[in-house]
């Protein structure tokens, strides 16, 4: 079963680059943590995809106009949270997806303590074999 784990980061305290405002050691610890989490998922055969998203400063919402051309809106400065990145894991149970999400949530923050970021867990719908 595939699950998408969406990491929502609070915008407050993440001005501009977010982790750029942290001390050097904290940034390094955070990056190391994320890399070793991905490595572990790969080793365990549970990794499907993981991507970090570029900063919310450039985020736009697009809707089609009547003639089908794109109408862009944003970025939305008032949003409290933004999607910072996601994992797609292929696991045997929902519980296992929750466990991985909890690990990701505990990534170290500015002062080295766990960030406890909210991670939204959603099952990826299975597709017909030929899709």
């Amino acid at each position, binding site marked *: 079963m595939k699950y998408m784990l969406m990491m929502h980061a609070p915008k407050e305290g993440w001005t501009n680059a977010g982790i750029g405002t942290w001390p050097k050691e904290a*940034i390094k610890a955070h990056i190391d943590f994320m890399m070793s989490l991905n490595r572990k998922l790969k080793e365990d055969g549970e990794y499907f995809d993981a991507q970090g998203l570029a900063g919310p400063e450039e985020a736009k919402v697009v809707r089609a106009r009547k003639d089908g051309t794109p109408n862009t809106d944003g970025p939305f400065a008032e949003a409290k949270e933004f999607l910072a990145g996601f994992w797609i894991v292929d696991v045997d149970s929902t519980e296992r997806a929750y466990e991985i999400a909890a690990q990701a949530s505990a990534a170290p923050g500015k002062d080295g303590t766990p960030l406890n970021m909210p991670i939204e867990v959603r099952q990826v719908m299975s597709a017909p074999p030929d899709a």
Partner: protein
Amino acid sequence: MTAARAPLGFEHLLRELAPQVLGSVVRRFRDFAAAEDAVQEALLAAAMQWPREGVPDNPRGWLIHVAARRMTDQIRSDLARRQREAFILMQELAEDWVAAEPDVDSEPDRDDTLILLFMCCHPALTSSSAIALTLRAVGGLTTAEIANAFLVPEATMAQRISRAKQTVKASRVPFQLPTEDERAQRLASVLHVLYLIFNEGYTSSAGADLHRSELSGEAIRLTRAVHALLPGDGEVAGLLALMLLTDARRPARTGPDGELISLKQQDRTLWDRDAIAEGITLVTGALSKGTIGAYQLQAAIAAVHDEADRAQDTDWPQILALYGLLMRMSDNPMVALNHAIAAAMVHGPRTGLELLDALEADGRLTGHHRLDAVRAHLLELAGDNQAAIAHYLEAAGRTASLPERNYLAMQAARLGAAASPH
């Protein structure tokens, strides 16, 4: 000067011959898609037979012969099918094929690889299509390998390649060398595609993304082949030199965890001396011939960097002069940005910052993270750490490259730590 070549292994020989064979078969039969299938079958047959029976005396001729036979079989069976469907259609088709009767293979095979490259880098194609088609048809990579390198599903890449072939077919570009008038422009397209392939591999984060770095090697291999075909062309030599001089720094460019290391901080003893020597020889030879082009100038700049044993030994006045020439040649804001850095290194950061203001007013780089990153760097040199931090963060928020984001965030943090002890 020719570079050391890997010993010609069996697969290497097949990969080297594949574009020549494909070129020859396409020229005879004028059907790119069918020719590619036929060449694949010929290569497969060679891979089965040659290890057993030995490599034939004329391996290229053998492959062309087998592929052409497959093509003829295919045409016969197509004709038979069509005959059942409509007699008249068969006649038309047969006339077509008579018109395209295999001509004597008189042109030297070197032209076929070149024609194939011109075809794959046809201006009608988007760059992503041209890149994929070039790697497939000339580079001999499998669709799976290309998909892997560009981190897209294989089915997506297969579709991209197939649509590129359709576009080439629909454009009705004749399978021949472009005319003298078109030649410079078409060669520029080829070099641009090769340059994009190189960058795709080079700018990817190293370490975990080994597959992507192989793209740089592939781009160098292909550019080397073009250089062998057109040894007198200064821009081809310049591009090859630029790739070699840039790729030479790869081992020093990233740290153990794939983090970026700036040119200034790199351990220069890790640079590939052979590649640097070859690159310098190439660019020196090209520049001495007189027709100076943008790739040669960029290669010359890379050479000046590579010649400095320590960052502080860099001959910045020479780099500034070269960027000056480059700016006169192309109206590229990225060149102007690099020119501003060189000016700052020669005349001081304030001069560089003034040039950035002018660039900012120009508007084409508005919102581009590199403008902020350079401004941050120059502000730091000028001693304005607070403003530098703000621009490093701005740049970090805008870049779409994770290693670069991390690098820029680290720069901000480094200055922050210097300002207020934690």
